[in-house]
């Protein structure tokens, strides 16, 4: 026997169904008034138990009374709310904070723009210095095609080929780049040319020896056609770096 009633745990009714005991009843009695709780399914059994157990019936009545009082207390307190001055203070704080955030955002935008401007300026300066080292477009001094073109002055070039000195500082017009005016204003690119490329440009390969390729500056016209060439020695290239 337990303290609240006489039913032993897991007692069975005459029809064989399990009935609730006092321990189980006490475990769910505070949930009986709560809708949607697990006790919903057990309500019937709980009430049946209370009907047969005076101790649990007393507990059920007291619990119901307590719930009534709690509900009355909740209803009574239901009209209570914070005074209006709280809302006034909060709304003022909200407005102040919103203004501060807007100022902060403006300053941040200015700062971001300043940083972006500084970065662009820095990039511009770097590009300018880079351009000074690696000229892209500049005035070039042109030499007319040699009548006996070859890579070395002593060598003899075949007809239709251009002789270019290996250390020449001036550009030499290519046979197909007849537009000397365009060559004078063209874009200069430094390229590594193979023997085949040199031959296709009409440059004599006789002074090239065993070299498979040679470093050269090409003057390109607006349409990208090579107009003039200047060979660059490795020493000159290294100095320019």
């Amino acid at each position, binding site marked *: 026997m337990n303290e609240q009633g006489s039913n032993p745990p897991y007692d069975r009714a005459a029809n064989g169904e399990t009935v609730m005991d006092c321990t189980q009843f006490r475990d769910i009695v*505070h949930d009986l008034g709560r809708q949607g709780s697990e006790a919903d399914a057990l309500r019937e059994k709980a009430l049946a138990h209370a009907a047969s157990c005076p101790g649990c019936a007393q507990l059920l009545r007291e619990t119901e009374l307590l*719930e009534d009082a709690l509900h009355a207390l*909740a209803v*009574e307190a239901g009209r*209570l709310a*914070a005074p209006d001055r*709280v*809302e006034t203070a909060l709304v003022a704080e909200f407005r102040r904070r919103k203004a501060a955030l807007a100022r902060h955002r403006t300053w941040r935008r200015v700062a971001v723009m300043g940083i972006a401007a500084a970065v662009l300026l820095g990039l511009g300066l770097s590009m300018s210095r880079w351009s000074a080292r690696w000229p892209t477009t500049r005035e070039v001094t042109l030499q007319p095609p040699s009548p006996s073109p070859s890579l070395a002055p002593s060598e003899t070039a075949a007809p239709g080929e251009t002789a270019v000195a290996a250390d020449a500082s001036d550009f030499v017009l290519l046979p197909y780049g007849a537009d000397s005016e365009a060559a004078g204003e063209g874009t200069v690119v430094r390229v590594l040319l193979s023997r085949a490329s040199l031959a296709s440009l009409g440059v004599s390969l006789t002074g090239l020896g065993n070299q498979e390729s040679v470093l050269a500056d090409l003057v390109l016209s607006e349409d990208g056609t090579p107009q003039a060439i200047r060979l660059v020695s490795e020493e000159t290239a290294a100095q320019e770096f």
Partner: protein
Amino acid sequence: MTKVTELTDDGLLGRMMAGDQEAFALLYRRRQPAIYRFALHMSGSAAAAEDVTQEVFMALIRGAKRFDPARGTLSAFLFGVARNHLRKRWEQERRFAPLAEDADERGDIAPGGPGASGVALRGRVGTDELSRLETVSQVRRAIGTLPENYREVVVLCDLAELSYEEAASALGAPIGTVRSRLHRARAMLLEKLRGTHAPGRRASMANR
């Protein structure tokens, strides 16, 4: 376009975070009474409840991003913030004890509570009503004497009528813990009420 008044708490919060003052005001009006009452029942002081309510919504203005909808409702979040503020206050003001005679002036919950002020009521209400008011007053007093952990579940689940899930989210505790604390708290309340009733009154309390 959805009217502001038709928005859910989360919708209002989103607008508030985007700087909509009206949305904030509406959210405040919707949620402050419950927070105020929670703080009032927990502290027993109207001034403290007012301060806590202000602090809760101030915290929302300053850090609305702290609210995670995946962890519970905004209401439960606000109760949780209120609870933390109350705990902080208690830690800071352990030595503070309000003078009983000042309680009425401040609007605090007096031991008898509103509606239970004795002589004046006796002439207006019947015996049953008086008895009911007396019981309500005793319950209020008994709640005030519960240990904090038990008081907050009674206030949240029985007075604020939160579900176990919402209360668990507000308290940051498992649902089972909330349920068992509530059962224990109610058992303690019943014990206290039995103690306050004269031997002859116990039967009448149970028989109404």
